[in-house]
């Protein structure tokens, strides 16, 4: 290329670039969007609903004119369920895509890996689905550093309580069950969950006969069910999230005569029915909301709109992610700014009626700082059951539509 031509080209390119920059800053002046990065397990059954629900919330807010004229922009990143990918996505979201806040992941290991990055990059960060107690305990332990992290889902401790509350009413009082075996996958979130189970189950009158922790890459559950059956419990209390389809299908195919009750994250997504060829029939799982359950007036319309747009009812993390976009937008409005520290202050004062209940965060002095509050009038959780291919609420009484019922191979001991 001759010199004159390359010079001309450079000028032309320079002019084009300047023009582009000017256009971009001009747009920014008009209405700088509020950017929310969404890092999620887009290929996993529980995580897939996260980016979808966040987008739905953003579309709704934007359709009503946005926040003080500013649109919400969702920037999605698939983390392939990997902590390393998530950290890279977080860095890119903050440094290159200039997000104002991040919603990320249902996996505790991933969230614990992101937490220090939220501190380093001073970016408000909310998880819609991870449960480990350590997430909010770290905020409590070093508040000034870790205050950017918010736990938008129940802690494992609260989940155990929710399961025990439901078990007391449904299993002990109504079905007179007396014993249980805990079956949980070996992961960060189940450690505090199991501690919670061990503590609260005996209190409600369920004797814990055995406790089986298994590797999340287990494929053959026959020996596990065999061992459980040998202990002759009335119920299996579950703590599963990374696995779900395989134990459920094998439970049905082997006709294990003991009901499963507890946390089963994959079962919260409507697609679970197809993935298991309806083997989920009779499975009881804890949820924060569910299709057709009017936890608040917002729950049912959200689930219906989600299904209309994406073809299935969302997983539990869909409900929380949807609420999160709304209360982040609300916090921006109250803070009058997207400045990270002001946003954190505003998020701490969140009092938002979402799809899962009334969202408020525990304060600096509570042990689970920045985790959502559990309790009556706030968030209590539900117990749902797969019945005739549908997810139906069976607890608490005020939202329950039907009684618990089991497939014929389940033999109740009482």
């Amino acid at each position: 290329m001759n010199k004159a031509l390359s010079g001309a080209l450079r000028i032309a390119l320079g002019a084009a670039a300047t023009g582009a920059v000017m256009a971009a800053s001009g747009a920014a002046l008009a209405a700088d969007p509020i950017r929310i990065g969404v890092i999620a397990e887009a290929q996993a059954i529980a995580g897939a609903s996260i980016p979808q629900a966040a987008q739905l919330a953003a579309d709704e807010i934007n359709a009503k004119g946005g926040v003080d004229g500013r649109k919400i922009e969702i920037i999605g990143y698939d983390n392939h369920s990997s902590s390393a990918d998530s950290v890279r996505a977080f860095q890119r979201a903050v440094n290159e895509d200039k997000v104002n806040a991040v919603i990320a992941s249902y996996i505790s290991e991933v969230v614990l890996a992101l937490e220090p990055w939220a501190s380093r990059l001073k970016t408000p960060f909310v998880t819609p689905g991870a449960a480990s107690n350590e997430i909010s305990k770290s905020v409590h332990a070093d508040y000034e550093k870790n205050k950017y992290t918010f736990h938008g889902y129940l802690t494992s401790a609260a989940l155990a309580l929710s399961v025990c509350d439901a078990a007391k009413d449904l299993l002990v009082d109504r079905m007179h069950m007396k014993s249980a075996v805990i079956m949980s996958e070996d992961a960060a979130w189940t450690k505090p969950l199991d501690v919670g189970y061990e503590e609260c189950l005996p209190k409600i009158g369920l004797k814990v006969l055995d406790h089986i922790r298994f590797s999340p890459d287990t494929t053959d559950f026959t020996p596990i069910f065999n061992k459980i059956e040998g202990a002759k419990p009335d119920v299996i209390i579950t703590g599963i999230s990374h696995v779900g389809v395989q134990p459920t299908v094998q439970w049905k195919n082997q006709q294990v005569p003991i009901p499963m009750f507890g946390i089963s994250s994959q079962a919260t997504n409507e697609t679970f029915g197809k993935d298991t060829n309806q083997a989920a029939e009779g499975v009881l799982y804890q949820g924060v909301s569910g299709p057709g359950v009017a936890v608040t007036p917002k729950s049912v319309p959200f689930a219906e709109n989600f299904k209309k747009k994406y073809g299935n009812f969302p997983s539990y993390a869909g409900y929380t992610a949807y609420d999160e976009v709304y209360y982040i937008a609300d916090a921006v409005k109250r803070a009058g700014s997207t400045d990270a520290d002001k946003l954190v202050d505003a998020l701490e004062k969140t009092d938002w009626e979402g799809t899962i209940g009334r969202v408020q965060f525990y304060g600096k002095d509570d042990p689970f700082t920045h985790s959502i509050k559990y309790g009556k009038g706030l968030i209590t959780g539900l117990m749902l059951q797969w019945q005739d291919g549908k997810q139906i609420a069976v607890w608490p009484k005020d939202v329950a539509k039907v009684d618990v019922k089991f497939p014929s191979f389940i033999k109740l001991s009482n």
Partner: protein
Amino acid sequence: MRAFQILIDGFAISALYALGATGFTLIFGVSGVLNLSHGAIMVAAAVAAWAAASILGVGTYAGALIGVAVALLTAFATYFAVVKPIQDSRRIPNEEKEIFVLTGTLLWGIMIQELIAYFFTNNAKTVLPIVEGVVEILGVRTPKNEIFTAIVCCLVIALLWLLVNRTRTGKAVLAASMNPRGVTLLGLELTNIYIVVWAIYGILAGIAGVLLGMFLGVSSYSVGPLTASAFSIVVLGGLGSVSGSLIAAFVVGYLETLTAYLVSPAYRTIPALLLLVFVMYIRPQGLLGRR
């Protein structure tokens, strides 16, 4: 009671391993190809069977057939798009071709895995069993599907034996595994033999994949472990030896089941891998290896 349980469960899983490993070792024996996309082909079959039955609603039998057909097509694609171009290439030195085939099939397997995860999520899928329900055998409540799996595996392996030992095509395949040059001198087209072998392989991997999908369920994550398990069974039995693979499959299957029942399900695969290392020390050619 527990002994019977281990005997029955171990048999089904071993038979499934045997079927999965047979095709793998056959390809190696005849054409010297270690196909590292093996797990991906099995998973593709299972996911296709699931998708056909659960999403398209074609029914279990048609779903299973579609699964096997997908495996057959994927096996051919592996041969024609990955393996054959490398074998025919003049730019890759002959002594490096094996390593190229290894890398090529490994990458091909990862591509299939990612495609499955992209279109069908990385969540486990289970194929609706052709036979449902349970029966009591020696006091053990056994899913009929488990018995079905074992029977189909044994039947298919028996058919393969008949095909290889009793038909003209089979004898050509056998000859090719012994002396490829000799076969070409007899006027047989080696490429045609390879196509036959890849077709047999595709069907075997497809049936194994669909059965695995019915028995335990598979996800895109299963690709690596499935390839690894076939690989270690085949190495244990002796590369290229079909009967060695069959024996090794039962050794590994029962060792895993024993560990899962008597020690802990968490350590299921460890003793079999230790055994593999041990056998490599004292008998590097494997149990029935020829070299």
